[in-house]
């Protein structure tokens, strides 16, 4: 009986937080279907008739669809690149002892701590000199470079924790160093890779400052830029409902992807957490 009682209490607490989390989102969805006048009349009133036009407007005039595609290209490319390079780096630093390995490790990890916008203007020159300004691959390279510290930081610990026996056996069987990494260690590290990949996906997806400066071409805007532009232009045009619709359209795909893959994501996190 005691368990039952405290369980209901737990449920109340858990449900309150769930409500707190969903309310603003539900409210955004609701507002995206109202007229501007209805939004200002009352935050919770239902729309007289759902204004799907808001969504159409956000989709067509604010090009949310194109931004979504750009974001997927850039984030996808950067994710593959940073996971590959990050895993290689972390593996080498964690499993090989060589002069300078600690310096490289701390040099990489220190990159996590620096306020990014300080590097922005010099970074612009670097990217421009390389002719990469406003290109997908330029953005992918920069995204990957800035995600590298965090990736190495987490994967380093992960590779440290992997048992050594399998790798040694592979070496004895005549496997090359690269072979050991790709055929033995990387598969063993898969759970950790997934969890770090999730961290990175979320981080890259939310990237705002880097594209702002390095991606000036509106045709190649990523979602965060597109939304900011929408929010700013809302400030000039007073199109609140269109802004909410844009927000919702931007949120939905990620939300849907999460709900679909949440089992795998959680499994990845489980593995990452256990190390």
């Amino acid at each position, binding site marked *: 009986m005691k*368990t039952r009682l*405290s*369980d209901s209490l*737990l*449920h109340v*607490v*858990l449900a309150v*937080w769930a409500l*707190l*989390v969903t309310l*603003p989102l539900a*409210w*955004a969805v609701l*507002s995206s279907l109202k007229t501007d006048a209805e939004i200002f009349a*009352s*935050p919770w009133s239902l729309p007289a008739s759902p204004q799907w036009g808001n969504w159409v407007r956000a989709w067509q005039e604010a090009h949310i669809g194109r931004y979504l595609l750009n974001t997927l290209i850039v984030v996808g490319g950067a994710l593959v690149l940073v996971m590959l390079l*990050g895993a*290689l*780096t972390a593996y*080498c630093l964690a499993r*090989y002892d060589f002069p300078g390995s600690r310096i490289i490790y701390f040099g990489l990890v220190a*990159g*996590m*701590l*620096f*306020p990014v*916008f*300080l*590097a922005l*203007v*010099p970074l612009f020159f*670097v990217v421009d000199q390389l002719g990469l300004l406003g290109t997908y691959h330029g953005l992918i*390279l920069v995204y990957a*470079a800035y995600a*590298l*510290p965090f990736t190495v930081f*987490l994967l380093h610990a992960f590779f440290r924790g992997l048992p050594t026996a399998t790798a040694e056996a592979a070496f004895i069987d005549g496997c*090359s*160093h*690269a072979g050991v*990494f790709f055929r033995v260690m990387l598969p063993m590290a898969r759970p950790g890779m997934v969890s770090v990949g999730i961290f990175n996906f*979320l981080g890259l*997806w*939310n990237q*705002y400052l880097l594209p702002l400066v390095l991606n000036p071409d509106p045709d190649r805007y990523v*979602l*965060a830029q597109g*939304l*900011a532009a929408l*929010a700013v232009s809302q400030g000039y045009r007073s199109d609140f409902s269109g802004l909410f619709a844009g*927000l919702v359209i*931007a*949120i939905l795909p990620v939300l849907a992807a*999460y709900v679909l893959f*949440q089992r795998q994501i959680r499994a990845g*996190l*489980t593995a*990452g*957490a256990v*190390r």
Partner: protein
Amino acid sequence: MRHGRYRFLIGALAPPLLLYGVFVVSPYAQAFYLALTDWDGLSAEARIVGLANFADLWSDPLFLAALRNNGILLLIVPTAVIALALFFAACLTLGGGTKRRGVRGSGLYRIVYFFPQLLSVAILGVLFQFVYTPGDGLLNGLLGAVGLDSLERAWLADPATALPAVTAVMIWSAVGFYVVLFTAAMESVPTDVVEAAVLDGAGRFTVFRRITLPLVGDSVQTAFVYLGILALDGFALVQIMTVGPGGPDNATEVVGLTLYRAAFTYGEFGYASAMGVTLFFITLTLTALALRATRRERVELA
């Protein structure tokens, strides 16, 4: 074992280090150099002024206000997020008795709790600006609906509530991710260990404190570092949400905003770089301290 070792190391490390060197290290190195100059972004040459920029920082009320606010965020955000996340994670995994893992519906909670993590900072800022709208905003509307009219206020316009309002958004958005992370860690505790403890007469709380908590230690440590970095930033939220921004009366000024303004509004590029460098060293020191303080023997469950 020796064969091809260095060839592999060089081949493996050269591309990432090249990438890192070109896009991360060199811009930062240039920023470090700028911090020692009086470059205003306009004049043909920059004068080396040594450490004068750093000396000026300590008499700049705006920078000091920003440091104070980031300090408050740093004290509150990681602690609150981790405490809440541990609590919810414990509820989700330990509730429901020892037979079942977790309370009924824990799967759904875990899905829902993660939602805020999926919103980018730009979305968060815009959304919560409306939540805090004076008069008929979401928050005031809710307070009115439950009869707490007296608590309704212009949240972001009052120096007493503006920073707490921003802090709340940070916490709101971060908790879910760590709930999922900690839940995952807690579920890695083998059932037989828990059952043995319960057989020995340990209550839920004891199980949590003695068995679960030590096992999520590593995750907590990672969370502290990650959340600390988050708390030292806050730029985007403050820039989008607050009065001024940074107001009212500098109540929500953060270092990122001071730096951004110094560089891009006043053209004091050298001075702004000095702020960034200072922030860098503060972050570095705090991280080192935090890692040292939370370092402990890893619990092995072999």
